[in-house]
């Protein structure tokens, strides 16, 4: 069994690489795929914070907005290149994450969630009111298309850049989680006091989680900025933060693939519900409530439970045969 473990990642990467070919560069499919990858990055970041370290944040759209606006402003006002914009904006966003982490270092659970909601709202208010910088409600317009070298990226090219970054983020996260840092996250999620008795510096690891999540949001924000070409404060509202949280919870918080699965399902789900128009958000809301009521451990939890049930059944069968 063990030798076959590599086969799924290879198959999935092949499928992702060939997606533009399979769909004959279908505009709509690639559009959705790019959005899926942007939200995957956001959800992977929040998964570190919420899933592994146990810190609920409902303000990720704030970081997302900061990343998007900084990258957009650098590109529009200073004419900087694509990669340098992403780098600077995600570094600045992680600094903001450090700031929020430092101010909330003593807060847990609902109190922390409350502050993050406030943070997201303040970022949005700044984006609306700082008109001469952000363009306010009329939006920040005219972000140029992404360039690699002197070559302007087509939609297909941008898709490859996005999945490349998702892959990097995914691999980096896997390494962090499998390291001492990741084990410290899980320990402080499960038993904060016991973890600190074992010598884990809770404050330090909280900050690390906040900074990584913010860094990823900064990357995702810059990718969104270059993809959309214009930024509006309304986009980065509370429901956007909720959506990111839902992706993590639906996929299964604290699991490796959960956030990506969640991001893909929610994004596609939105598209499927689009024909229902004004009923779209109601169905989405009902879906959210049903998910947390009936499978609070997300899809991954559900699959694990099913696998267990099947295993028990199989065991039962062999017992029956032995009898």
């Amino acid at each position, binding site marked *: 069994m063990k030798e076959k473990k590599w086969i799924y990642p290879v198959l999935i990467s092949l499928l992702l690489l060939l997606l533009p070919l399979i769909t004959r560069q279908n505009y709509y499919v690639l559009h959705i795929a790019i959005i899926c990858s942007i939200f995957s990055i956001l959800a992977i970041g929040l998964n570190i914070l919420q899933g592994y370290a146990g810190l*609920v944040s*409902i303000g990720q759209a704030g970081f997302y907005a900061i990343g998007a606006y900084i990258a957009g402003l650098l590109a529009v006002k200073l004419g900087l290149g694509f990669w340098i914009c992403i780098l600077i904006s995600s570094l600045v966003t992680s600094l903001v994450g450090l700031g929020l982490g430092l*101010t909330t270092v003593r807060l847990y659970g609902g109190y922390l969630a409350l*502050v993050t909601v406030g943070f997201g709202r303040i970022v949005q208010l700044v984006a609306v009111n700082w008109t001469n910088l952000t363009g306010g409600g009329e939006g920040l317009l005219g972000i140029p298309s992404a360039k690699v070298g002197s070559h302007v990226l087509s939609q297909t090219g941008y898709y490859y850049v996005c999945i490349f970054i998702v892959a990097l983020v995914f691999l980096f996260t896997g390494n962090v989680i499998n390291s001492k840092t990741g084990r410290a996250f899980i320990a402080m999620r499960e038993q904060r006091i016991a973890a600190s008795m074992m010598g884990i510096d809770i404050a330090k690891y909280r900050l690390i989680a906040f900074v990584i999540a913010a860094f990823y949001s900064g990357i995702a924000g810059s990718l969104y900025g270059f993809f959309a070409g214009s930024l509006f404060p309304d986009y980065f509202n509370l429901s956007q933060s909720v959506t990111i949280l839902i992706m993590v*919870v639906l996929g299964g918080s604290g699991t490796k693939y959960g956030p990506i699965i969640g991001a893909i399902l929610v994004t596609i789900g939105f598209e499927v519900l689009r024909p229902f128009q004004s009923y779209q958000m109601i169905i989405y809301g009902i*879906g959210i409530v049903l998910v947390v*009521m009936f499978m*609070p451990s997300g899809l991954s939890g559900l699959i694990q439970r099913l696998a267990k049930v099947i295993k028990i059944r199989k065991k039962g069968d062999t017992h029956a045969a032995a009898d």
Partner: protein
Amino acid sequence: MLLDQVIVGLVVGASYALLAIGYSLIFASMRLLHFAQGDFLMIGGFISLSIVSSVTANPFLVIFLVMTSLALLGYLIERLCYKRIPDHMHAARIIATLGVGMILKNTAGIIWGAQIRPLSDGFFRGPVVNLGSLRIQPSYYWTLIIGAMLMILLSLFLNRTKVGLAIRASAYNAEVAEIMGINSAKARTIAFIIAASLTGCVGIFVAPMTFIHTEMGVSLGMKGFSAAVLGGLGNIPGAMVGGLLLGMIETFGATVISSGYKDSIAFIVLILILVFKPSGLFGTTEPEKI
């Protein structure tokens, strides 16, 4: 001029106080941060609009009917949703409240439409009161009077009746309360219903200032939260003072900073309080157990 500001601060503060009481009641009895509170407020506003246009325009009757319908709505939501999620799943409970808020907001959008509507002119009838140079609008003094009445009634209910005692006891310690023969699940439901109906009432009070639309609950809900945290989440008298204080801070703060940032005052107060004194102004700080 200064007195005008004080009156406005008190009126806004009374609404925040009622909202904050709702949050604190729910938090004290259910340990739940109820993010759908702002949407309850919005539903209250819309229901009052429908009642005024089709049933009666008597303010007291309207308030009574709104509170009754919100109580019913609260009962349904608590029964069908919140009750079924175990207490220890923090993230799941928070998300459920956000989902409920989303359902309420979009349902309201379909029933009542997306346009911004005023509550009919002269809903709060009465002469303009002149105190020296001060002119107080009828909607202002009615908000203050009815708000104060509701708060007094609630205090009497919580402190002088058996049901109130049951709510306080199960909020203090649900297990011990159950040993003493209190049905704490029922006490929670009653507390939630009271909170829902008070919140619906706020929807009428703020209508003259914010008008009625589907987004009216978003920032008001967060401000109520800030007020509740300011007074100490779960502390009812604290919520009253916190609400009035926040109303004052916001009204006077708005004269200092530009009005676009006025909404952020409440959030800054919220963050400052949570960072420096999470138990609120009147709470006793629990020492960290490490």
